[in-house]
């Protein structure tokens, strides 16, 4: 939503459609379709779900829901009327005139009305716990009813962002937490970050012990960390014990009113009450974006005349979220930040007597702005031109040049890690990147853009938000949603997207973190939102394993394979046995305990995205041996031993790294003198976008297993969780089934051997 007043001359509130964001359901484009104003997102926790769970609530937020107040007020009035009659008669006798009676009645009633307003609960206000005093609901509380495992909770967290007067803003915060167990002590140390241009004043902090004592944090125990641009105040609360309250408040003053601090409602501990109020004087306009809007009320809008703002009429926008569960990571999540309830702001415009300025409020504005930044960075210096000429002299054809330039940026520009940013002020010009042979992920790709442009290719940067970053909502015109730049090369009949920042990547395949639906294209004359098509690579592993079992249960054998797409990408760079062992255990052979790579053939790396390899391997303990029998899982080291989806419920969608299709053919050979006694039947599981088959046949001393597993898409909504759980449960049942070989010749022995 937009907060504040337009610069169109009319001082009225302009509220656009509320921009809503939730965690992904299906693909991210499907999320957009689902999330229209007022519609609940199916993949977020609804407030009604939480409220039904019986959390211990703070006193009710709205006094209008408390009928007792009205009853009390009414009773006071009745009592007053009776008193009027009694007292008046006693003091003055019978009323001398009706007018005097009426006057006396009015006085008494009005005094009662005033008294009723002195009650602690009044319309429109949310009751807050008293500073420094333990609330009765907090007393004796040592765990949360609905989350007994929580070591602490945020009882109350309130922020006020006051813009102005002038070009400043103040951020006032008060935060109160209750510690339930020693595991929660870590929340009793606090770090308050601030920029070097900002100031923190009025910091107060204390512990309220379970017996109600208040113990302050001494000023000399508050330490300042100075790390250049960013600083922080850190301190530890004293006398922290289970059941205590830790509370602090401060004011941060800043001249950077362009950047209002985001407000995070939800953390890794439960939050009972969190609210933010933004105070806007006339002339300022911001866009506010809520992530997890189902958990946050629509903003409460009010206004007042502010002495601080020279009696200007200041509008307030307040958001409240209550009873938020702890946000904890789960397996197969794209990013925890997708699901965090939070509020972000971006300045749209401001108009004062001195200045009238409009910022970005549309994508064309943002494209123009970024284009002007990047044009400077992409400026071709003689050094870059000379390099490009040298590169061109070694290649023939535009495509070859493009591939060479890509490989150079990928392999020969050292990667400098750091926080990802697309903002020009944090980026180096490409001439420096080339000269120093190092750059950030974004800088490597900008260099690639420059080289391709030098060759006359239609190459442009595209801003995206990687999968581990915030979800990119095109309705939210904020640059800080985007954290990476890839390259778009447009040809008359084709379009290629490139990312030279990943050392494992290859030409034409974006790394998994960059597989997103949309980005912002920054063309030389044009730009805007573009769709980024899914790659047409097949991500697969085709493996052939031949194992020769020994009577002691070990196995040696050969493993050959062809990996394509991201399966090959995962392999990249692995050249030593130890590297390959760790790759196999973590991806294709999760049950491969005792795996050793004895010998490997040089893997061939083909630029069309495939890796072929051949290994001689040993598997210690491939089978249990004893009593004349060999017992082993038919799928051996490739078996899925555990269902990854064990929680009965899952609050978030499921996101695999990429869709994949794996085929494994395993041949087991029993030792001489053994024969196959039993094999599992195998089976299959099929559902939408999920397919698994396992066929097992035996012939003499040989068992052959063919197993296919297809995961057809990346994202599965929460509603599909049960299906996933059942599917993988079925896989585990089949994978873990046993094959048995028994010794046919000689005497069996009961002695154990391995």
């Amino acid at each position, binding site marked *: 939503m937009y907060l504040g007043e337009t610069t169109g001359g009319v001082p009225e509130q302009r509220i656009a459609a509320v921009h809503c964001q939730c965690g992904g359901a299906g693909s991210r484009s499907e999320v957009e379709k689902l999330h229209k104003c007022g519609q609940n997102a199916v993949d977020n926790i609804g407030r009604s779900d939480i409220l039904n769970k019986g959390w211990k609530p703070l006193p009710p937020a709205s006094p209008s829901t408390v009928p007792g107040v009205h009853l009390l007020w009414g009773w006071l009035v009745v009592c007053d009327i009776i008193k009027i009659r009694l007292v008046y008669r006693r003091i003055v006798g019978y009323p001398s005139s009706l007018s005097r009676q009426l006057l006396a009645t009015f006085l008494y009633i009005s005094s009662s009305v005033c008294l009723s307003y002195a009650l602690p609960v009044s319309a429109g206000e949310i009751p807050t716990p008293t500073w420094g005093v333990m609330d009765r609901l907090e007393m004796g509380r040592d765990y949360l009813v609905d989350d007994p495992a929580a070591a602490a909770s945020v009882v109350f967290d309130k922020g006020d962002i006051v813009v102005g007067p002038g070009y400043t803003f103040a951020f006032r915060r008060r935060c109160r937490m209750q510690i339930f167990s020693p595991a929660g002590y870590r929340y009793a140390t606090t770090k308050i970050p601030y920029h070097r241009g900002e100031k923190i004043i009025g910091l107060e902090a204390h512990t309220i012990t379970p017996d109600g004592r208040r113990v302050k944090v001494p000023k000399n125990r508050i330490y300042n960390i100075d790390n250049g641009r960013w600083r922080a105040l850190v301190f530890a609360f004293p006398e922290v014990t289970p059941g205590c309250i830790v509370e602090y408040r401060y004011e941060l003053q800043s001249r950077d009113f362009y950047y209002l601090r985001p407000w995070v409602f939800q953390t890794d501990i439960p939050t009972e009450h969190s609210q933010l109020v933004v105070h806007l004087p006339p002339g300022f306009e911001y866009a506010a974006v809520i992530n997890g809007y189902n958990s946050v009320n629509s903003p409460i809008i009010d206004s007042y005349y502010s002495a601080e703002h020279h009696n200007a009429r200041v509008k307030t926008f307040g958001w409240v979220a209550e009873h938020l569960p702890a946000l904890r990571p789960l397996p197969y999540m794209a990013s925890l930040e997708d699901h965090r309830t939070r509020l972000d702001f971006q300045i749209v415009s401001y108009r004062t007597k001195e200045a009238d300025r409009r910022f970005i409020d549309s994508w064309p504005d943002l494209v123009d702005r970024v284009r002007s930044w990047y044009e400077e960075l992409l400026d071709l210096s003689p050094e870059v031109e000379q390099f490009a000429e040298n590169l061109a002299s070694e290649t023939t054809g535009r495509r070859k040049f493009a591939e060479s330039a890509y490989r150079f940026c990928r392999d020969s520009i050292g990667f400098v890690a750091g926080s990802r940013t697309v903002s020009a002020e944090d980026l180096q010009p490409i001439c420096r990147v080339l000269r120093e042979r*190092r750059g950030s992920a974004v800088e490597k790709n900008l260099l690639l853009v420059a080289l391709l442009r030098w060759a006359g290719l239609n190459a442009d940067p595209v801003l995206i938000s990687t999968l581990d970053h915030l979800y990119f909502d095109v309705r939210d015109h904020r640059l800080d949603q985007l954290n990476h730049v890839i390259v778009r090369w447009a040809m008359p009949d084709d379009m290629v997207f490139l990312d030279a920042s990943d050392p494992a990547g290859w030409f034409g395949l974006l790394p998994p973190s960059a597989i997103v639906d949309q980005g912002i294209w920054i063309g030389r004359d044009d730009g805007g939102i573009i769709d980024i098509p899914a790659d047409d690579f097949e991500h697969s592993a085709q493996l052939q394993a031949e194992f020769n079992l020994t009577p002691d249960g070990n196995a040696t054998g050969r493993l050959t394979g062809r990996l394509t797409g991201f399966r090959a990408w995962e392999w990249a760079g692995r050249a030593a046995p130890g590297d390959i062992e760790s790759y196999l255990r973590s991806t294709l052979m999760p049950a491969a305990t005792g795996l050793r790579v004895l010998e490997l053939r040089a893997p061939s790396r083909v630029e069309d995205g495939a890796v072929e390899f051949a290994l001689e391997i040993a598997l210690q303990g491939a089978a249990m041996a004893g009593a004349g029998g060999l017992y082993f899982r038919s799928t051996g080291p490739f078996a899925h031993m555990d269902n990854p989806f064990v929680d009965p419920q899952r609050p978030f969608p499921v996101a695999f790294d990429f869709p994949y299709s794996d085929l494994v053919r395993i041949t087991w050979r029993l030792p001489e003198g053994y024969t*196959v006694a039993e094999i599992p039947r195998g089976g299959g599981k099929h559902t939408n976008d999920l397919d698994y088959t396992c066929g097992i046949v035996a012939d003499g001393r040989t068992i052959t297993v063919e197993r296919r597993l297809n995961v057809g898409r990346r994202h599965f909504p929460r509603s599909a969780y049960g299906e996933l759980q059942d599917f993988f449960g079925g896989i585990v049942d089949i994978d873990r*089934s046993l094959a048995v070989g028994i010794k046919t010749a000689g005497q069996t022995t009961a002695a154990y051997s391995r």
Partner: protein
Amino acid sequence: MASDSRFFRFVLHITLVLNFVLPRSVSGQPAAFVADRPAAEWLYDYWKIEVSPTRGIILDIDRKARVNALQGRAVGRLKIWETFYQSLQKFSGTLSDTLGGILFQIEKADLKSGFPFSDYRLYSEDRLYEVDLAAPSFPYFVEYHYQVLIDNTFFWPDWVFLDEYPRDSVSYTVAVPHRFAYRTREVWPGLRVDTDRSLKRDITVWSAVDVLPETVAGSAPLPVMYIAPENFVVARQRGSTESWASLGSWYDKLTEGRRKITKQQAREIKALPTNPADPYTVVLELKDFVSHNWRYVAIEVGIGGWRPHEAASVFDSKYGDCKDLTYLWLAMLDQFGIEAHPALLRTRLRQPIMADFPKDWFDHVVGCAVIGADTIWADLTAPGYRAGTLPYQAEGRHALVITKNGGVLCRTPGSRPADNVVIRSLTGNLQRNGDLAFSLRAEVTGHKLRVLGTGTSTNNDDRRAAEVLGVLPGRLTAEAMSFAANPDGISAGVQVTGIIAEWAEFTGQRIVFPLTFAGWAAPQPMVEPGDGYSATRRPYPCREIDSLLIILPSGYACEFMPADVVVDEGPVHFAFSSRFAGDTLIYCRDFQYAAGRDQAETPDLDGHSIAAIQNADAVFVRVAEPAGDSATSTF
């Protein structure tokens, strides 16, 4: 013509030879087949120490390595600390390919630094520079040089190998002014020593070539040589490493006055013990009081990394690090006239200190109270350990006890297997769906009790029961649980009834289930970080006695069980036996491990038959007619 033919053959031969010798490359990618080389190998690893009377120590590190595989990338990862006594002066790093081409260069200005804080180490003035020099394609060379200024010789760094990769050439050069006294103790065998004397300096070089460090269990740096100045001044206190007594004296002076508390605090403390007249009661109860009511938070400003905060301020704040909490406890005992001292220990690294080489070895502080002929040790940062017991990292270690007469080196008591015992007796009924309905009684003592926790860490019975059994919490549902600490305070009894889901697999004609629970094979809390998973290795002496009675569904016969065995091998004693009759299986396991953490030869029995039994499954086959469709094909 003949010469042309010979020339042609010569060129052909050379080409063929080069074809096999030179690295292959497909589509511009270097061949990465390096199976016959280690993941990394150091060409040189040089340390140079120059001692300056005015500046302190100037340390120069020069290293160059060839990285052959992904695992070897770690050689390019550096962590360089800046502390109150140490600052980074210079840094330069280069990545190059095998043809000598520079891929990447970095200088000090390019390094990012940060403040290494956690929830427990809240604040110090330290900064950490982290560098990651890595190239995308193998092999490549990483080379770096950095210089650090250490303004006090007390913090002279020992010579260590930070990894186990082979080294072609290593050296440690020390240049000191004449008459500057220092001591060394070589650990690595076969070091060559060369000395030289110049006008102003005595120079000594220790060196070696073709060094093959062998991995020591754990991730500790490998010591090559220990070194210490004979005399030093820290925080204006003079000290000496001539003897433990002198080193102890220095520390005593450094911490003078830190045991003071206010009169009000003294009054509160005197009211705490239930029997102030009994010193044992006082020691025990005050130790518990501090450990349970003060939390660990480290705040180190300047010499604060060495000197504790005043006991009075620690008393008020209710937090502190190991030395803060220890000095608080000592201050409390002072109120009752009980003799007590701080003791410095080395706990983080596995290698013990050398008793005949006094130097700064230490990373932890505990306390010891002396009552008559008894010494009672206490680790104030470990709430699970009562006074008189120590965490296993502190057991059996050299400790420098600080007294008014100087330091006294002694050893903390170790523990025996009988001190760390778990006895579990389980009765279970195997359901047809693979779940095991069970009832368990257990007695636990010593470190085992700490593994279980004292029951205060969670209110969730499922989790606590899972800890007792060592199974994954998600698979166990505790229907009833009681946990009772015994009056001796060092043992506890546990009773649990519940269900373990999917404990057995019904696969075709067979039932397969583990003989031991996951935790019995290798309880995770018992394995030291860096030691890796081990089915049999333990960081401390222990004994586990388990007896299980499992009732199986009818109609099954035993097809596979390990044979009865008794093994006595070094510090390990293991016995296993089983019986099956009708539908009842009984088996017992007795595992005892008598080796301690300090033992140089800690046997690895992972490949031993003991490990195999611990990891084995039992197999029962159906002998009655199947009730329905079989999920298997039989032959």
